[in-house]
Every structure is written in structure tokens, then in C-alpha cells.
């Protein structure tokens, strides 16, 4: 098994509180890996550590075997670790066209290009248009992001991450807050992610987790509690007791 991302004894303490406790996680290349756990289990902290928003108190993070623990967020993005946000983090005054155009030009290393007018590279525009069409944003490309329907904003949230061409994509509750009738569009987009992209899904909704993941890690109190295939995790009595409880019993 080729490992895309590995954490070794990752620890994060906030003045006495242990948010991540010796997390040693391995995510296989091309995996559909889900990270679940009750509120306060340390999922958000783990994402912040993986993306470089916070520095760990101890431990290491390896991407394809290379130590990236000391790198900043934007350096990790350049290496291919890209995330989406549970609560939309978009550019409200830009249009989807500009937003994706920005991400694509940054990825191509043309972000410091200050003499060329935006949109003057036909191949870049073609790629931007392709991404927008793939994520069903074709009909709103010239609207201000702030006025888009919530479901479209969620799609843009994912499209923006994809425009960075991730090797490892961290999806933080992609369908959070999306109304029922727009949900399938988001889930279809998640299901249609390129197979060569490794995905780590952080999710509360067990239906999504079990339909999407081929591997599940359960985080409790900042530590890895159980890890295994969806069947193993669903069967595990400790998981049922601690976390899944009635939800799995019902399923």
C-alpha cells in the first residue's frame, strides 16, 4: 500500500487541553478515507495541523514520505494538500469565474503576473470554464459569489479546491447545511472526484460516510480510537458504545 499522507505521533496542546493526542494516521494513495468522531473529538484541530494553519506541539507529518511539518499553508497547497471548509470560505465580491481563475493562475505559478490582464490566456480560461461546467456553475459564472444560492456556494467551495489540483483533498463536511433538494448535486460532485485524488472526508452524516468511504478512522478525545473498513467500524461494539450508538443500530 502506497501511503499518501502519514502522521507520526501528532500532538497538539492548547494550554492544558490535549486536542490531538499521539495521532498516527496513514492514508493510502487514492483512498476514500473518512474521519469521524463526536463533537470536540479534535477533527478540526487535526485538519488545521494537516493544512499548516496550526503547528503541532509534537510529532511529524509526511506527504509521500517527505516531512512537511514545518511548511506553511500555502506551501503545502503547492505540494497538493488542499482543503474545503465546513463553513464557506469564499471571496464574496468576486464572481465564480474570477474565483476559479484566481486559483488556476496561482496553481500555474502566474499569481505574481502583474502586467497581464486577467483572462488574457486562452488555455487558462478554457480550464476555468471546464471546471465551472463540471461543478454545475455554468449558469452563475458572472454573479457575485455573495448572492449565489447556498448550494451553488457549496459547489464553488469544492470546485475551488479542485482548481488547485490536489493530490490530497480534505473535505470538511461538504454537504453541511445544504437543503435536501440541492444535496444530491453536492454528493454527486463528491462522488465524481477524480479517482487519483486521495480524499480525507470529515463528516457527521453517517449515510454519506458509509456510502463514500472505503476506510474509516474514528477520533475520540483527540486520539485515534478505531480504524478499519466501513464494515469493521460499523460492527465494532466500542464504536457503537462511544459514538455511533443508535444511528448504526438503526441502520
Amino acid at each position, binding site marked *: 500500500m502506497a501511503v499518501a499522507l502519514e502522521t507520526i505521533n501528532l500532538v497538539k496542546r492548547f494550554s492544558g487541553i490535549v486536542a490531538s493526542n499521539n495521532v498516527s494516521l496513514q492514508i493510502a494513495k487514492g483512498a476514500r478515507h473518512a474521519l469521524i468522531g463526536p463533537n470536540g473529538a479534535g477533527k478540526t484541530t487535526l485538519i488545521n495541523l494537516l*493544512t499548516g494553519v496550526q503547528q503541532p506541539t509534537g510529532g511529524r507529518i509526511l506527504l509521500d514520505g517527505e516531512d512537511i511539518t514545518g511548511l*506553511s*499553508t*500555502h506551501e503545502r*497547497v*503547492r505540494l497538493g494538500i*488542499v*482543503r474545503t*471548509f465546513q463553513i464557506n*470560505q*469564499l*471571496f*464574496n*465580491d*468576486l*464572481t465564480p*469565474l*474570477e*474565483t476559479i*481563475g*484566481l*486559483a488556476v*493562475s*496561482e*496553481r500555474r505559478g*502566474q*499569481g*505574481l*503576473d*502583474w*502586467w*497581464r*490582464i*486577467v*483572462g*488574457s490566456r*486562452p488555455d487558462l*480560461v*478554457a480550464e*476555468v*470554464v471546464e471546471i*465551472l*461546467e463540471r461543478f*454545475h*456553475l*455554468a*449558469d452563475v*459564472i*458572472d454573479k457575485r459569489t455573495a448572492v449565489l444560492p447556498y448550494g451553488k456556494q457549496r459547489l464553488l467551495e469544492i470546485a*475551488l*479546491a479542485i*482548481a*488547485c489540483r490536489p493530490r490530497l483533498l480534505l473535505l470538511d463536511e461538504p454537504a453541511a447545511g445544504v437543503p435536501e433538494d440541492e444535496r444530491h448535486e453536492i454528493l454527486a460532485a463528491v462522488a465524481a472526484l477524480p479517482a487519483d485524488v486521495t480524499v480525507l472526508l470529515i463528516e457527521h452524516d453517517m449515510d454519506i460516510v458509509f456510502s463514500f468511504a472505503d476506510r474509516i478512522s474514528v477520533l475520540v478525545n483527540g486520539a485515534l480510537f478505531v480504524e478499519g473498513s466501513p464494515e469493521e467500524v460499523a460492527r465494532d461494539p466500542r464504536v457503537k458504545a462511544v459514538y455511533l450508538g443508535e444511528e448504526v443500530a438503526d441502520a
Partner: protein
Amino acid sequence: MLPSPISIRVATEWLSARARWQPLEVAFWIVAFAAIWLFPDRHLILTEIAWLGLFALSLDLILGYAGIISLGHAAFFGLGAYAAALLAKYEIINEPVLALLVAGLAAMALGFVTSFLVLRGSDLTRLMVTLGLALLLRELANRLGWLTGGADGLQGVSIKPVLGMFRFDMFGHTGYAYSLTVLFILFLIARRLVNSPFGLSLLSVKGNPLRASAIGISVDGRLIAIYTIAAGYAGIAGALLAQTTSFASLEVFSFDRSADLLLVLIIGGAGYLYGGLIGAIIFKFMQDYLSALTPQYWPFWIGLVLVVIVLVGRDRITSWTAPFRRIASHLSWRTLARRISAASGERR
């Protein structure tokens, strides 16, 4: 349901929409240059408007496009002014355009070094840091009396002809043409810059720094870059003042200057490049007109204007002019062409 395919041509057009020249813009610059011949007796105040507009453009680059607020922008303006005055006084560089560039580079160097102070912190922190820096420089210039002339200012500066051909005169004829040309060139560069991928990345950093870094943008790097560039613009504005008046005094660093600058930009509106220029025109003519009426009390009226702007713009005071701009943007080439063809159709 499949979305309708977007043509790349249309997408390109929409992406570059911000960069297209609008009829009002063209008219603005035609009037500005026509003033060289049309209003020869107003060249002194027009010169002041030109360098103040450039100074405000500089603040717009950091406030309107990158969200960095400053109450000490006079630090760079003052450095540029003293640099230009000293270069001329000691005949180090006699040609004004070259001296202008050197003054701009000196201000850029100061901008780069001090940019690290404005990377972190809230608006309030930034206000205090920039304010402190300008005060610091003012006192430094005061202490270095042997070089700067201290509180008396730097006297005995004589500026040689621009490009060796155009001599400065007491009516400001050369001064205005020179300042306006410099302003126009730097405006074109700024316009190009804000409509580039780099400019778009600045807007993203201003709008959502968290996400900007999450798509691979070095937020600090972009802020350092634009702060350095803006400092250069401010330095050149200061150098224009020194060259057109043959004088530099401690007042170039003053707090009033930084505060007035913020006012100028707010009057004109931030984030569309013309705000600083329009603000400078309104501010200077208002100052000229009101101080003729009541020499001592003109700041009263400025204060009143500021309060009205705050009431109109509420919490978005830097873009209180947005509704007017929206109306103005309806006057595009297409509507202009339509109106002209309609008018000519009627005549037939």
C-alpha cells in the same frame, strides 16, 4: 440537467471586463490634459491636486485593494520629498525625472522594511503602527538638522529643468504638465496591476485571507509586495511636491497630512483607483473655496462633509460612492454607441 456550455470567448470577455476602458475614464483624462491649455491661471492648485491625487492613489492601492489601513502614509511621502529636495540641493542628481525615480526607490525601500509591521494585527494595530512610524520619521528629520534644515525646512533648493528642457516657473505651468504626466503614467501602471492576476489575488487576500492561503497564495508575500509598491507611489508624490515648490519641511511628515489623505480617499471612495483622484479634486477645491470664505474655519466644513459621508455610507464608508459608480457604469461604449446611432437615426 446539463448546464449550458459557456463559450470561452464570453468567459474571456467577462474576466477582462474590469480592465476595459470606460467612456467616463477617457473623458476624465482628456479634461485633465486639456487643463494644461484651458486653465493656465489655475495651474498651481492643479499641480497640488495632481500630487495629492497620486498620494491618495497610493493609499488606495493598500486600503482599497489589500485592506491595509494607514494613518502614517506621510512617512513615505515625506521621505520622497526630502530625498528629492536633498538630491537637488547637493546637486547629486540634477535631472528631476531621475531624481523622482530615486526618491521613489528610497520610499520603496522604507516601505519594504516597514511592511513587516503591518502584516499582523487588526485595523487598530495597523493605524497605531503606521501613525507611530510617521511620527518617528518626523522627529528623526527634526534631529538631523544639519542635513534636513530641521524646523526651518530645507531651503535653497533649486530644481533644474525637466529632461534638461522644461524649466519650472512660478505659475506652475511646467509643474502641472510634469506632475500630471507622472500621475498619468503611474496611474496606467496601477490600473494594469489591479486588473492582473496579481491584482485579483490582492482582492482575495483582502476579502478572505484564510481562503487565499488555502488556495496557495502567500498572503504575507502579497501584502509586502503591494505595501512596497504603494510606498514608492507615495514617495514619488512627495518628490513632486518638493520639486514643484523647491522646498521640503517637517510638515511633509505631519499627522495632518496622513489624516487628510485618508479623508481624501474616503471622499472619493476606495477600491476603484479614481477615488483618490476625485477626492483630491473635491478636497482641494473645497479647501480653496471655503478658506477664501472663512480662512480659519474651513476644517469645520470638511468635518461636516465627513460626518455626512459616514451617515450615508454607514459601515462601508470607503465605498459610499458605490451607488454613483453603478450609475456611471451604465454609460458604457455600447450604450454610448446605441445613443449615437439612435440620435443619428432620428436626424435621418
